[in-house]
């Protein structure tokens, strides 16, 4: 069985967690803070244990049918309670004593992420952002903000693949210019056709694609961008106190989504270099993407789930920038009420304009 680790405070023995406010490891019991780099030695010790974890991985690939074998059973070091975690869980909390645990086996060797962006915002910030998200929405059912229960709120490190690319592109367009003039009783239209060619290149860095199949890709794209300036080399210590998942969609499958976005951006960039024509129609497009090495990163996301009238509503907040997304229901009665108000205003204004100026 792979080892689980609990980061114990050297002063009082409590379990230390990563604190987003100070950006350091903090013991919630005696308030002592530690620099994450101080815990690097522990990580180095883990890397030497590569052979063990590598061996553990193989059964997962060979015995796909028996899923239970991919579910690991661990024992909490504080209370000896059984923790059942599936193949992708990297960090979680003991269901009995609540202590945060990190399943280091998930992040060792080839599975070790290259980068991590630590959490900048904490749970209270997430709750406040949810309140702000629900306020000021005229068509939200009144009872949603009152009656909805926050079922679950968790800080999760989401696995992302980051792709670099160098793109060579070549476009050709058909452009036209029109000139209209009158002589005598004739109106002449002269249409001139041009062939517009644009070729060149453009580079992209760190295009992110969500590497977890359990999380909605659209939601993860909606909370972008993450600022990689705040990224640090990965250490398992950062995960303590939060949940973390290992990737289950590998780089080969994710690269298609990244390349789709890269292609769209390239087309937009090159089309914007065409100026001064009355109409522009693309004729030939050739985009060649050369991908660099993919990076594996963990980005911080707060996930919230509320229930209202029997339905679950999911929200996500970028744990670094605070960008908050989540779809909410529309109250049909309010919709038609506001429609009636706006339609009445528009009718009154049009009537005045028509009466006095046109008819």
């Amino acid at each position, binding site marked *: 069985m792979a080892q689980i680790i609990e980061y114990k405070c050297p002063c009082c023995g409590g379990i230390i967690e990563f604190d987003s406010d100070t950006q350091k490891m903090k013991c919630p019991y005696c308030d002592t803070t530690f620099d994450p780099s101080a815990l690097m030695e522990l990580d180095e010790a883990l890397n030497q244990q590569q052979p063990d974890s590598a061996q553990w991985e193989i059964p997962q690939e060979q015995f796909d049918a028996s899923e239970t074998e991919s579910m690991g059973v661990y024992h909490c070091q504080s209370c000896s309670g059984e923790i059942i975690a599936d193949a992708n869980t990297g960090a979680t909390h003991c269901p009995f004593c609540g202590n945060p645990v990190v399943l280091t086996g998930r992040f060792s060797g080839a599975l070790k992420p290259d980068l991590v962006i630590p959490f900048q915002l904490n749970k209270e910030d997430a709750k406040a952002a949810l309140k702000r*998200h629900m306020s000021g*929405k005229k*068509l939200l059912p009144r009872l949603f903000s009152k009656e909805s229960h926050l079922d679950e709120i968790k800080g999760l490190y989401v696995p992302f693949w980051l792709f670099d690319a160098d793109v060579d592109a*070549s476009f050709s367009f058909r*452009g036209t210019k029109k000139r209209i003039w009158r002589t005598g*009783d*004739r*109106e*002449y*239209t*002269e*249409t*001139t*056709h*041009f*062939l*517009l*060619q*644009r*070729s*060149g*290149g*453009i*580079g*992209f*860095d760190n*295009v992110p694609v969500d590497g977890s199949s359990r999380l*909605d890709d*659209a939601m993860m*794209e*909606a909370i*972008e*961008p993450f600022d990689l300036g705040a990224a640090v080399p990965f250490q398992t210590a950062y995960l303590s106190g939060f949940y973390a998942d290992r990737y289950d969609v590998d780089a080969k499958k994710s690269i298609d989504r990244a390349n789709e*976005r890269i292609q*769209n*951006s390239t087309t937009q*960039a090159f089309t914007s*270099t065409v100026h001064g024509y009355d109409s522009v129609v693309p004729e030939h497009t050739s985009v060649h993407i050369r991908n660099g090495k993919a990076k594996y990163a963990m980005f911080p996301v707060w996930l919230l789930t509320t229930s209202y009238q029997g339905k679950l509503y999911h929200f996500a907040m970028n744990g670094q920038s605070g960008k*908050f*997304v*989540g*779809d*909410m229901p*529309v109250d049909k009665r309010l*919709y038609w009420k*506001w*429609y009636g108000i*706006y*339609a*009445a*205003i*528009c*009718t*009154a*204004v*049009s*009537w005045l304009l*028509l009466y*006095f100026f046109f*008819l």
Partner: protein
Amino acid sequence: MKRLQLILLSLALLLGICLPLCVKVAASDAGTHRFVIDNAKLLTQNQAEQLERSAEEISRCQHCDVVILTADGIDGRNPTSYADDYFDRNDYGQGSDRSGILLLLELSEGVRSISTCGFCIDVFPDSEIEALWSRCSAEIQNGRYAEGLQIYLQSVDRMLSNYDASGNRKPNPVRSSVFALGIGLLLGFAPVSALKSQLKSVRSNYSATDYVRAESMHLDVKRDSFLYSNTSYRVLESQRSAPSSGSSTHVSSSGVTHGGGSAKF
């Protein structure tokens, strides 16, 4: 008592002077001329008088002279200019721009001519004149002149009712309301759709613009090449120096602009 008598006397004098003037003004406005001149003797005395009363009432209510002229031979002159000149020479037309409409039925050649002046040029564009004539042409062509001319007068009256004394289109509240309601119902969807879209925030990103490497875009080939050019034309409808909405105008011998035209019947 003496003062009271003095006041009463001056009032009476004042009225005595003003009333005749009013009558004179009113009379001159309505004109000492007739509105139905039946030189071709197409109508009986009764019919002529009835049409005269109708035309006079319409002219008074609509603030423009509505004249009907029948003739059996006009010395070979052009019917359009004959109608224009007749209108001008006999001082028809109300208001400073001498608004009015004259219908000439010339039987020897079988030509009808309609001449408009003043704001009637705009009220009766060429299309409207065609419509006017088509309504009464059947009766006139079959010899029922009185009935035809009555229909003509009614059509003119109906058309003029949409316009006020100075020739401006009267606002029609019912039509405005219907249009306004239609526009309002359509436009009402726009703001409420904007409110609804506030509630949807989960959407994929179409492009990767945030991740373009700074200064990495370079254009190696930027070439705009001329291919070919073609020119086409279309003939425009002949528009003379006309005001709005297609009234063809012509100037009479007295220099007054008239609208309308002639056609055989």
